């Protein structure tokens, strides 16, 4: 892998993706997609951490890289969304560590992960609508996290929120300025990770707002059958048998 916008490290329990630049761009989309391939195909670590660098998580799109004279291209946005779906569906527990600016595309990235740890100095904001465009499929995901009313306030007013408000809304799960400690405790909380069960449960949760109950019941039964057919699940059951 030849990554230029991110750093990717794996240790026994946890893979860490560090965003090396404050802005998202097409190279970052390609790099994150390559990392998703590796995480799905080769990486054994059950947890992935996504974090920023130099005190900021990510500020999203950089308009300085756009050529205002060239016709605007929707396909780049499509590529971004495809990458988002890949991150959202990884067969791992995903954790983001938020520091400083968590803006635009950075805010969207945070919504893709299963758990968000924030330092007390964060600023979360979706400024797109005031600029005149849309905050990606953040318009779809955010309302599920915080409810339609709060989502309208954040998106339509481009309102920025701090760590405390993000915690209250459920956008942040833990505030800590001792990130090493907070991350260690969080990894312990998620262990042991059963990647299949994680993936199935997360998919059913993500689908819970738009499937009908009858459809969801069918999906649950299909997913549950897959979960209980796993050898690892059967082994656990055997261990519980009285000898």
């Amino acid at each position, binding site marked *: 892998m030849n990554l230029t916008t991110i750093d990717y490290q794996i240790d026994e329990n946890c893979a860490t993706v560090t965003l090396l630049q404050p802005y998202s761009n097409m190279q970052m989309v390609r790099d994150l997609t390559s990392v998703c391939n590796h995480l799905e195909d080769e990486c054994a670590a059950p947890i992935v951490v996504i974090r920023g660098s130099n005190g900021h998580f990510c500020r999203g799109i950089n308009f300085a890289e756009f050529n205002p004279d060239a016709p605007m291209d929707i396909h780049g946005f499509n590529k971004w969304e495809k990458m988002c779906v890949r991150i959202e569906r990884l067969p791992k527990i995903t954790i983001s560590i938020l520091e400083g600016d968590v803006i635009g595309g950075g805010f969207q990235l945070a919504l893709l992960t299963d758990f968000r740890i924030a330092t007390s100095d964060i600023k979360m904001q979706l400024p797109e609508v005031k600029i005149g465009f849309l905050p990606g499929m953040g318009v779809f995901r955010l309302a599920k996290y915080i409810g339609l009313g709060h989502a309208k306030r954040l998106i339509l007013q481009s309102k920025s929120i701090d760590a405390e408000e993000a915690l209250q809304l459920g956008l942040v799960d833990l505030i800590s300025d001792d990130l090493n400690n907070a991350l260690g405790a969080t990894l312990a909380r998620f262990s042991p990770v059963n990647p299949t069960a994680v*993936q199935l449960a997360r998919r059913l949760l993500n689908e819970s707002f738009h499937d009908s109950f*009858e459809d969801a019941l*069918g999906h649950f039964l299909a997913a549950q*059958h897959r979960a209980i*057919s796993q050898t690892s699940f059967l082994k656990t059951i055997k261990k519980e048998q009285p000898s």
Partner: protein
Amino acid sequence: MYPARPRILSVGTAVPPNKYTQQDVISRYRVQNPTIQNIFKASHIKTRHLYLPPADPNGIPNESQSELLKKHRKGAMDIGFQAIEACLKPLGLRPRDIDMLCCISSTGFMLPGLTAMFIKHFGFRTDCHRMDLVGMGCNAGLNGLNPASSWAQANPSKLCLMVCCEINSALYVFDEKIGTGVVNSLFGDGCAAVLLRADAKDQKRLAPEIIHFSSHIIPDTWRAMSYHWKDEHNKFSFYLDRDVPYVLGSHADKPIKKLLDSLDLKVRDISHWIVHSGGKKVIDAIKYTVGLTAHDMRHTIAILQNYGNLGSGSFLFSYQRLLKEGLVHRGDYGVMMTMGPGSTIETALLRW
């Protein structure tokens, strides 16, 4: 030079003229049992095309076994021919141009088989090669496509036509049993034909190459889908075990992995999924086992809703729907997948 792989050059389908909603069927045969009514309504099927008999004086369909066999034959003649014509006409071909004819059916036993009947009536050449593949059920389309494409590969530039003919309304019993209700609410009538040829000059066409196949059978469940002769009805009845969707679902990843591994492909590399419309539960089970989305399954679901389970030709109806959508690009990979008695899962890898 590297020999050209067989490609699917064309597809044609046909269904009987009469279309019924689930409520139409319930009303036509005065189904009173609320459980059976609910099975019909909960099947996620909106309409099916069927050859339905009028209700007898007791309000039920009452066809003898010989009438059912005749219906199968006549149905195959009618919509079988329409499907063949729909497949050949766009290429300016006629039955006499075909070098190999394969017919697939599980809804009525005949000797001689459908190929002989089609050759007699439709103008195929008398030196046309033939294969009748009978009694393999819903998965049979890929069990047929496998030898058909091998034949095409072995006989470059020759045309091989494969026809799936299922007249499901020619194989049923009618009673108050739950299992009967499930089967009678599920299947529809339909025929589908595909044309294969291995010829370097077809490379210009946006027609998929058939790369290879992968099969998986689950022998422990060999009776889970099966025909049974019923003396009380004097007919065959189709038995469908309630665990079938989950069993098939939980094994679905095995042949897929084998199919993709040999080219070092991943599920995410597959642009098009052409999956048999077996029923809502088996579609769900495959979605959650293989990790496919509702979008991946859109054609499978649409065919189930509009036609029901069409047996061996179902996946070709989905294939046709995919082509009509116009979103296939050169270089795209597709997977065909059918499931049925055995219990078995059959898969094929395509490349456009």
